[in-house]
C-alpha cells in the first residue's frame, strides 16, 4: 500500500472513531476493509478516480456519524424506558401518534404563552377564545376517556375550579388553604392512580401557586412569562413523549428550577413600576440576598411536591418490608404534612407576627415540612419495626429528603437580617431551625442505627463497607449520568453568565447607570460581567494581533485567558455528555485548570473575582460536579467489564 493510501486509511479510521461504540463494534473493521479496497482500486485508476473517491467517502462521513449518534441516543432512551419497570409507563394510546399527544399536551401552555405575550393589548375575544378552547379540550378529553395529554389541560381546569370559589372568600387564609392544599391533594390523588397524568396536571398549578404575583411590580416581565410558558409547553410535551414517570419527575423539577431562576433574575434586574423618582424606577443593584430570597424558598417549595410524589414509592416499599403494607407510612406522611401546613397557614393568618416577605419563608417551611415528614415517616417505621433495609436505593431518596431543606440554610443570607422583624418572629425562625435540626438528627440516627436500632448497626456497617467495595450505590449515580450532567451543564452556563467580575471601574451613581457589560455591584463601583469580558477579550485580541506587539497582546489576554480556564469545564462536561467514554481524564484536567486559575487569581491577587452569586454558584457546582464525576469514574471502574469494549 502506498503512503498516500496508508494516510487516507488512517484518516478514515480516525473519523470512524467518532461513531458511537456499538456501531463501531459491529462495523468498524468491515468499514475500514471496504474503504481500503475501494481506495486501492481507485488509486489504480489514477488521480481523478482517487480524488472522486475521497470527496464521496469523506463527505458521507458526517452524515453517517450524526445519524448513528442519533440512532444510538434513541435506542439508549428506549432501553432506559424499558428498564423503568417498577414505575410502569402509561399505556400507549391507540389511534394517535405520540407526537400528536405531546403537541396536545404542550398546547395549553403555548396558548397561555401567546396570551401573555399579547397581554398589553389583549382584546377580549382572545380571552373568550381561550375559554372556548379549554371547554372544547375538556369535551374532547372526556370523549377520548381522558388521554394522557389531557393532564396538561386538567391543571388549568383544576386551577379554575379552586381559584374561582377561593376568590369569593373574603377570609384570605382560606384562599391560602385552597391554593396550597388543593393542588397538593389533587396531585397526590391523581398521581397515585396515574402518575404521569398527575404530574402533568400539577406542573402549572405549582407554578401559579408559588409565583402568582411574580411580576406584579416588574416592568416588562412579559417576555419572561412568555418564555416560561414556552418552557412549560416543551416540558409537558417531553413528559408525554418520553412516557416515563422518573423522567417526568426530573423534567418537572428542572422546569420549576428554570422557571424560578428566570423569574428571580427578571425580578431582580428589571426596573420596578411605581418605585423611584419616575414611574419606571432605577435598575436595582443585583444583590445575592434578594435573588436567593426570591429564588430558593419558592423554588424549593415548587420542586418539593413532584419530588415528594416520587418519594412515596420507596416509602411504600420500605413500609411494605416492615410489614406495614405502606399504609402507615402514608398516614404519617399525610399527618406530618397536615401539621406543617396547618402551622404555616396559621402563621400566615397572623400578619402581625410576620410581614409580607415571610410568604417566601412560609413556602419554604411547607417544602421543608413536607420533606421532613417523609424523613420522619421512614424514621418512625425503622424505629418501631426495625425494618431491614435491603437496598440503598430505598434510603437514598429519604436521605436526600432529610438533607434537602438544609440547603436553604447553607445559602448565604437566605432570610431577612435581624432587626427587620419583631422579636416573636425571630423566636419562631429560631425554633424552626431547631426543629429542622432535631428532625434531621432523628432521621439520620434512626436510619443508620441510632438509639433503639442497635440491632441494625452491623447491617449499616456492612452496607457502608459494601458501598466502597462493590461500588453499588455509585452505579446508581452512573445510571443517571445524562440527567445530572445536563443539570450540571445548565448550572455551569447559568453560573458563567451570572455576575462574577474581573474588571472594576469607578462610576458614581449620580452620574451614570452602569450599562452592560458592566453592572453595579457596590457603592460607586461598576464591575464587568466575566462572560462579556471573555467575548470582548477575544474580539479585542483579534485587533491587537494586527496592531500591538506580542508582549502587550499577552498581557492584554491575561484576564481573558484566566476566565477562559474557568469556562473549560463547560466544554469538558459537554464532551462527556456527547461522547460519554474515556473523557473523564480530560474533564478532571479541565476542572484542575479551573481550580488553579481560581487559586492563582484569588490568592495571588491577579484579577481577583468578586464574590457575586455567579461565582458562588460556580463554586457550588464545581464541588457537586467533582463529587459526582469522581463517583461516576469509580463506578465506571467497578462496572468496567460490563461496558462495551473500547477500541
Amino acid at each position: 500500500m502506498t503512503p498516500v493510501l496508508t494516510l487516507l486509511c488512517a484518516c478514515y479510521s480516525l473519523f470512524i472513531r467518532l461513531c458511537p461504540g456499538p456501531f463501531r463494534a459491529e462495523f468498524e473493521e468491515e468499514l475500514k476493509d471496504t474503504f481500503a479496497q475501494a481506495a486501492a482500486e481507485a488509486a489504480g485508476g489514477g488521480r481523478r478516480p482517487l480524488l472522486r473517491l475521497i470527496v464521496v467517502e469523506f463527505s458521507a462521513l458526517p452524515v453517517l456519524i450524526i445519524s448513528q449518534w442519533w440512532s444510538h441516543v434513541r435506542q439508549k432512551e428506549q432501553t432506559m424506558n424499558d428498564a423503568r419497570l417498577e414505575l410502569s409507563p402509561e399505556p400507549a394510546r391507540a389511534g394517535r401518534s405520540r407526537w400528536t399527544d405531546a403537541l396536545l399536551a404542550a398546547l395549553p401552555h403555548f396558548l397561555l404563552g401567546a396570551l401573555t405575550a399579547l397581554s398589553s393589548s389583549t382584546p377580549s375575544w382572545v380571552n373568550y377564545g381561550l375559554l372556548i378552547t379549554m371547554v372544547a379540550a375538556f369535551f374532547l378529553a372526556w370523549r377520548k376517556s381522558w388521554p394522557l395529554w389531557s393532564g396538561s389541560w386538567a391543571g388549568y381546569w383544576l386551577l379554575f375550579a379552586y381559584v374561582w370559589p377561593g376568590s369569593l372568600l373574603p377570609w384570605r387564609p382560606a384562599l391560602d388553604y385552597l391554593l396550597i392544599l388543593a393542588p397538593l391533594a389533587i396531585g397526590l390523588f391523581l398521581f397515585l392512580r396515574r402518575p404521569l397524568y398527575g404530574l402533568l396536571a400539577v406542573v402549572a398549578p405549582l407554578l401559579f401557586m408559588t409565583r402568582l404575583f411574580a411580576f406584579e411590580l416588574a416592568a416588562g416581565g412579559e417576555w419572561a412569562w412568555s418564555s416560561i410558558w414556552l418552557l412549560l409547553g416543551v416540558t409537558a410535551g417531553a413528559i408525554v413523549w418520553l412516557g416515563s414517570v422518573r423522567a417526568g419527575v426530573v423534567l418537572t423539577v428542572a422546569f420549576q428550577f428554570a422557571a424560578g431562576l428566570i423569574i428571580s433574575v427578571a425580578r431582580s434586574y428589571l426596573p420596578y413600576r411605581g418605585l423611584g423618582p419616575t414611574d419606571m424606577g432605577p435598575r436595582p443593584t443585583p444583590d445575592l440576598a434578594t435573588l436567593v430570597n426570591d429564588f430558593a424558598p419558592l423554588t424549593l417549595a415548587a420542586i418539593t411536591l413532584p419530588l415528594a410524589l416520587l418519594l412515596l414509592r420507596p416509602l411504600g416499599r420500605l413500609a411494605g418490608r416492615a410489614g406495614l403494607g405502606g399504609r402507615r407510612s402514608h398516614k404519617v406522611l399525610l399527618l406530618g404534612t397536615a401539621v406543617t401546613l396547618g402551622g404555616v397557614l396559621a402563621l400566615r393568618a397572623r400578619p402581625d407576627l410576620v410581614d409580607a416577605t415571610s410568604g417566601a419563608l412560609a413556602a419554604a417551611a411547607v417544602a421543608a415540612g413536607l420533606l421532613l415528614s417523609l424523613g420522619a415517616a421512614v424514621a418512625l417505621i425503622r424505629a418501631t419495626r426495625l425494618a431491614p433495609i435491603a437496598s440503598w436505593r430505598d434510603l437514598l431518596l429519604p436521605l436526600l429528603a432529610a438533607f434537602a431543606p438544609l440547603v436553604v440554610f447553607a445559602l448565604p443570607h437566605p432570610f431577612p437580617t435581624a432587626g427587620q422583624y419583631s422579636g416573636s418572629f425571630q423566636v419562631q425562625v429560631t425554633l424552626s431551625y431547631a426543629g429542622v435540626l432535631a428532625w434531621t438528627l432523628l432521621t439520620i440516627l434512626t436510619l443508620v442505627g441510632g438509639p433503639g436500632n442497635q440491632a441494625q448497626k452491623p447491617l449499616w456497617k456492612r452496607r457502608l463497607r459494601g458501598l466502597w467495595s462493590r461500588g453499588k450505590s455509585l452505579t446508581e449515580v452512573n445510571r443517571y449520568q445524562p440527567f445530572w450532567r445536563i443539570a450540571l451543564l445548565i448550572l455551569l452556563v447559568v453560573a458563567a453568565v451570572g455576575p462574577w467580575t474581573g474588571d472594576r471601574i469607578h462610576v458614581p451613581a449620580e452620574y451614570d447607570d452602569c450599562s452592560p457589560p458592566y453592572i453595579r455591584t457596590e457603592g460607586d463601583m461598576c464591575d464587568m460581567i466575566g462572560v462579556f469580558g471573555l467575548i470582548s477579550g477575544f474580539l479585542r485580541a483579534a485587533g491587537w494581533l494586527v496592531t500591538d506587539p506580542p508582549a502587550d497582546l499577552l498581557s492584554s489576554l491575561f484576564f481573558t485567558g484566566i476566565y477562559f480556564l474557568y469556562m473549560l469545564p463547560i466544554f469538558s462536561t459537554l464532551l462527556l455528555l456527547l461522547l460519554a467514554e474515556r473523557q473523564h481524564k480530560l474533564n478532571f484536567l479541565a476542572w484542575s485548570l479551573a481550580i488553579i486559575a481560581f487559586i492563582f487569581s484569588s490568592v495571588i491577587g491577579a484579577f481577583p473575582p468578586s464574590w457575586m452569586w455567579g461565582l458562588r454558584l460556580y463554586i457550588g457546582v464545581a464541588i457537586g460536579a467533582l463529587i459526582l464525576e469522581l463517583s461516576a469514574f469509580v463506578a465506571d471502574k467497578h462496572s468496567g467489564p460490563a461496558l462495551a469494549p473500547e477500541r
Partner: protein
Amino acid sequence: MDVQEQLPLTESTFFIILSLAGGPRHGYAILKEVEALSDGRVALATGTLYGALKRMLEEGWIERVEEPDPGEDGRERKTYRLTRLGRRILDAETARLRRLAGLGELRVEGKGV
C-alpha cells in the same frame, strides 16, 4: 409486517437490496454491484452503505452470514443476504415502480389520461 408501509424505498436502499437479490455479498461486492447495476450512476460511499446495512439488519430485511472461506488475510469476511421479508419488500417496490413506469409510458405515448 405490512410491506407497503416500508415503501417507497430510497434509490440507494433499492439498489442495495437489488444487489443482494443475486446472492449473498460482502460490503465491497455490494458497492461494485450497485455501481454496475446503475451503470456507474450511483456510487455509494462506504459510510452510506454501512449505515443502510445496519438499518436493514435491524428491520430484518437482510441478515449477516459468515463466509465459509476466510479471505487472503485469514480474517472471516461477513456477507449479507436478503431475508424473506427483504425479498417481499424488493418485489413490492419493483411492482410499484413498474406501475409508475407504466403510467408514465401511457402519458408520454398519449395512450391514456
